[in-house]
Every structure is written in structure tokens, then in C-alpha cells.
């Protein structure tokens, strides 16, 4: 039995590898001690004076980056700095939907790369991220929608992303509670069977545990307050726990990218806006796929606990309040009740907001910056969760080599100067 009573910072390098594997046997073994002696999933070390790579932001993307740096590139002298607790930002606030049926080639490459990694993630991390490829269905409610899903579905087909056109009758069979003849009748849909949901917290925890066991220092409650930049080269970061030197720095923040960029004397093509989601009381199984609708602005899925998870659109103004306006909730609830009349007596249990960094072309920025060895992986807007493994994977490769990974290269910040935008706004404005 590993000793759970280790104090933070007291473990030595040799103990990294001693993290016991989760299995049915470890579950049985720990049941004998009433589950009181599970070891800590990650250490809580004090920051070292210097690291090869510092990742700013301990959400899914940052932790994934650290994990792949250690696992695939052998760079283990890495710190992840998190100003609050792990996965407490947008990683813990999203609606957990995973899909890759984006219109444009660059996006399809990025998100489909993520799906390839999602499929084996639980095995790779030895941590159940509860990836559930239950299928993601996009509804079409008018002629324009039908043309949009036709265009996007065929684009997906060319990019080897799975897409299937579905008739209203098939939709009724898959989602019996749906009201096809509502105010905006359902005319068809496009289904991605490889899409689905995953447990968002488990993604952060799984990556954190795996990265920690490879030697990555995960430092919580460590807020970056400035950069140490000399002659256009990053030398380290200033934090509330002192100055930490670094060879390379990757900014993987959500909701605060502009603040971090400001510290480096830059601006980003990003505006931060509130986005809300909410869940109902738990129900018996009622809907076993993810159903999204861009036109009526709502999407729904059912969590494994039975809660229905709803989301809508972001508020249109810059705000860091992590709080949205009530009228956005109304915009979601009205169409939901029209589409699923059975929801009318449902009670909502929780509602929350996050701050999303939205770029003006709705695609992320995975890029070098004018400061040498300072990299950005930000601006994932309203739909970064689904990309977590792919984003971390390509960003780690870029940090390791110093050159952007081919999948990440089109997402350079320079596209705002060259005009080579990746304009996904028209394709997936709501359903990111």
C-alpha cells in the first residue's frame, strides 16, 4: 500500500513511477480499507527556480500539453502553473460535447486528430475519462439549414470525418421525445457517430495524474503576474510565488488570454465573453445521443448521472464576470420546450457561466508570438473542450521542436495579417 500521508514536496524522483495502476484489483484492495488509503493523484510541489518549459494554465489543454511533452518528447522538467485549482475554469464549466464535424479542412484536421486520441484516452492515461461516443446529431429546421448540413456533411466526407444524413423519421426513432412538427419543423439532420461526450473533470484529473507521474510539477494557486522578457526573448515568468526561470513558455489560458498577452506587451484578436450552461434534476435515461440545433440555438445531452445538460449562446459583450444574462437562458429554454415538450415540467438544478475567449474568425490561436520562445495556445472560444487531447498533442510537439506542428501551423496569429482566416463562424456559430 502506498502511504497516503506524504506531505507536499516530500516525494523523490524515484517515487514518480510508483504510482499504482488503477484496476479492478486496486479497487478491491482499497475497498478493504474502506477507500481511506487511496494515494494522492498528483503531488503539490513548491516551484523550482527554473524549468525547461512552463505551461501557464492548468486546464485540460495545459495539462494535456504537459503530459504529451513528457510522454512523447521526453521533456519532463516542466511546470504547469494554475492560478486557482485544476480544471476550475472552462474545463469544468463546459457541456462536455466532443465532435469533429467542422466545415473547413484546417479545423477538421485539428478536431479529428483529437477524436483519434479521445478514443484511447482512458487506456492511455489509466484513468476513466468516460468518453462516450454516443453520436452527435445536428438538426436542420429550414432550407438554409438543409443546405448547410449538406455542404458541411459532404465537406466532412471529403476530409474523412464521419457524417451521415438522417431523415426526420430516423430522428424520431433515435430521439422519441422530439416534437418534429414544432415552430421550426425538423427537416433532417446530420449525425457524427464518433462524437459524443466525456467527463470534463476526469480529463483534467487524468492528464494531471499521468503528467505528474512522469515528473511534471503541477503548481496550483500560482498566479502569473508578469513575464521576464529580455531583448525579445522570454526568460521566465513572475508569479505570486516568486520568479521562475523558463526556457520556453506556453500560454494555455482560457478567459484570460488578453490579460496574459497584455503582460507580454501584446494584444490578441480576442474578445472574452460570458457563456452559460445549465443542468436539470436527474432523470431516467431519456435521450441517448447529443442533439444540437444551430437555428433554434440550443443543445442537449444527458449525463451519466441522468441530468440533462443544456447550453446556448454567449453574451455579446466583453465580460470577465463568469456570469451571463438571464435573457440568454430564456433563449435556450423556449426552443427546448418547443422541441421537447416533455421538458416543460423539468426543474433546473444548476446554472453557471464561464468566460470564453472568442477570436474574430472563431478559430483558435495556436502560434508562436513576437517574443521568442513564448507560445500561445488560446482563443478556443465556445468549443475548446472537444479539442483537448489534439490541442495538447500538437502544441507539445510545437513546444518541443520550436516549430509549429503541421496541424497547428494554419492557426498562427499571423493569419490576421495575411488574411488566411479559418472562418468557422458560418459553419458552427452556435454548436461549437
Amino acid at each position: 500500500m502506498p502511504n497516503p500521508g506524504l506531505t507536499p514536496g516530500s516525494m523523490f524522483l524515484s517515487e514518480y513511477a510508483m504510482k499504482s495502476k488503477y484496476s479492478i484489483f486496486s479497487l478491491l484492495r482499497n475497498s478493504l480499507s474502506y477507500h481511506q488509503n487511496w494515494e494522492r493523484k498528483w503531488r503539490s510541489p513548491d516551484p523550482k527556480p527554473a524549468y525547461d518549459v512552463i505551461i501557464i494554465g492548468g486546464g485540460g489543454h495545459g495539462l494535456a500539453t504537459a503530459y504529451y511533452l513528457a510522454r512523447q518528447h521526453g521533456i519532463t522538467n516542466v511546470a504547469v502553473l494554475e492560478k486557482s485549482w485544476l480544471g476550475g475554469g472552462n474545463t469544468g464549466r463546459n457541456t462536455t460535447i466532443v465532435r469533429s464535424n467542422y466545415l473547413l479542412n484546417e479545423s477538421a484536421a485539428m478536431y479529428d486528430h483529437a477524436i483519434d486520441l479521445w478514443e484511447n484516452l482512458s487506456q492511455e492515461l489509466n484513468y476513466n475519462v468516460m468518453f462516450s461516443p454516443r453520436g452527435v446529431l445536428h438538426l436542420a429546421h429550414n432550407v438554409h439549414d438543409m443546405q448547410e448540413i449538406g455542404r458541411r456533411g459532404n465537406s466532412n466526407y471529403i476530409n474523412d470525418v464521419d457524417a451521415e444524413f438522417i431523415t426526420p423519421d430516423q430522428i424520431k426513432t433515435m430521439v422519441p421525445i422530439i416534437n418534429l412538427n414544432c415552430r421550426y419543423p425538423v427537416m433532417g439532420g446530420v449525425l457524427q457517430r464518433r462524437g459524443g461526450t466525456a467527463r470534463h473533470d476526469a480529463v483534467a484529473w487524468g492528464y494531471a495524474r499521468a503528467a505528474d507521474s512522469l515528473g511534471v510539477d503541477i503548481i496550483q494557486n500560482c498566479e502569473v503576474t508578469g513575464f521576464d522578457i529580455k531583448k525579445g526573448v522570454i526568460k521566465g515568468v513572475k508569479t505570486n510565488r516568486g520568479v521562475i526561470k523558463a526556457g520556453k513558455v506556453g500560454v494555455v489560458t482560457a478567459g484570460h488570454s488578453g490579460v496574459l498577452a497584455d503582460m507580454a506587451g501584446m494584444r490578441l484578436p480576442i474578445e472574452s465573453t460570458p457563456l452559460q450552461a445549465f443542468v436539470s434534476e436527474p432523470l431516467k435515461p431519456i435521450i441517448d445521443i447529443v442533439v444540437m440545433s444551430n437555428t433554434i440555438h440550443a443543445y442537449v445531452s444527458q449525463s451519466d448521472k441522468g441530468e440533462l445538460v443544456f447550453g446556448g449562446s454567449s453574451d455579446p459583450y466583453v465580460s470577465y464576470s463568469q456570469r451571463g444574462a438571464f435573457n440568454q437562458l430564456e433563449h435556450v429554454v423556449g426552443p427546448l420546450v418547443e422541441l421537447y415538450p416533455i421538458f416543460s415540467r423539468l426543474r433546473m438544478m444548476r446554472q453557471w457561466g464561464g468566460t470564453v475567449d472568442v477570436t474574430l474568425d472563431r478559430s483558435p490561436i495556436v502560434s508562436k508570438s513576437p517574443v521568442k520562445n513564448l507560445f500561445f495556445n488560446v482563443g478556443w472560444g465556445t468549443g475548446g473542450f472537444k479539442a483537448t487531447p489534439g490541442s495538447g498533442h500538437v502544441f507539445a510537439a510545437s513546444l518541443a521542436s520550436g516549430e509549429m506542428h503541421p496541424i497547428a501551423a494554419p492557426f498562427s496569429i499571423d493569419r490576421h495579417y495575411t488574411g488566411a482566416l479559418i472562418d468557422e463562424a458560418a459553419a458552427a456559430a452556435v454548436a461549437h
Partner: protein
Amino acid sequence: MLLIQCPFCGERDLTEFSHGGEAHITRPANPDKISDEEWGDYIFFRTNPKGIQYERWIHSHGCRRWFNAVRDTVSDEFLGFYKSGEQPPKIKRRKVLRK
């Protein structure tokens, strides 16, 4: 929900308004003379402040007129409203609330 003081109509509900983004961004005088970087900066890059923001609103479902506002983006509290073309009110730099 936010209450917004339209300088022409008075205090109304957020739903009557549309947001117009950051205020006081000046269009470059000679677009054909400037570099791609300067043009890209004008079109796409924003201050996106955590704190005091000067911004534009239009009273879409009211008088249909544009005006400016000052808002703290951390608390969403409005600190002032003024008509287009007027000088922004002097706002004392406040300490940004930590979340």
C-alpha cells in the same frame, strides 16, 4: 440582467440593445499606405481589458441610435454613458477586483 442608460431614451433593459464592441477605434486615414500588420491590427485586434472598457452600444429596439458607455468588465457595472462624439467621462482607475 443589465440595465442600460440610453442617453436619448433613459434606462432600459439589455434586451433592447445591441453591443457594438470597443469604442474609439479610429479607422486608419490612408488604408492603402499602411502595412498588412497595421491593417490587421485595426480590423481584428482588441484591447479586451479586464477592468474599465469604453464600448459602443446601439438602442436597436428603441431610438436606433449609437452611443458609448464605460463599464467595468469584471463586475459588469456601468460607470457612465455618453453620446457619440463626446469626450469619455473621466473614470478613476479602480483596482481590478480579483475573481
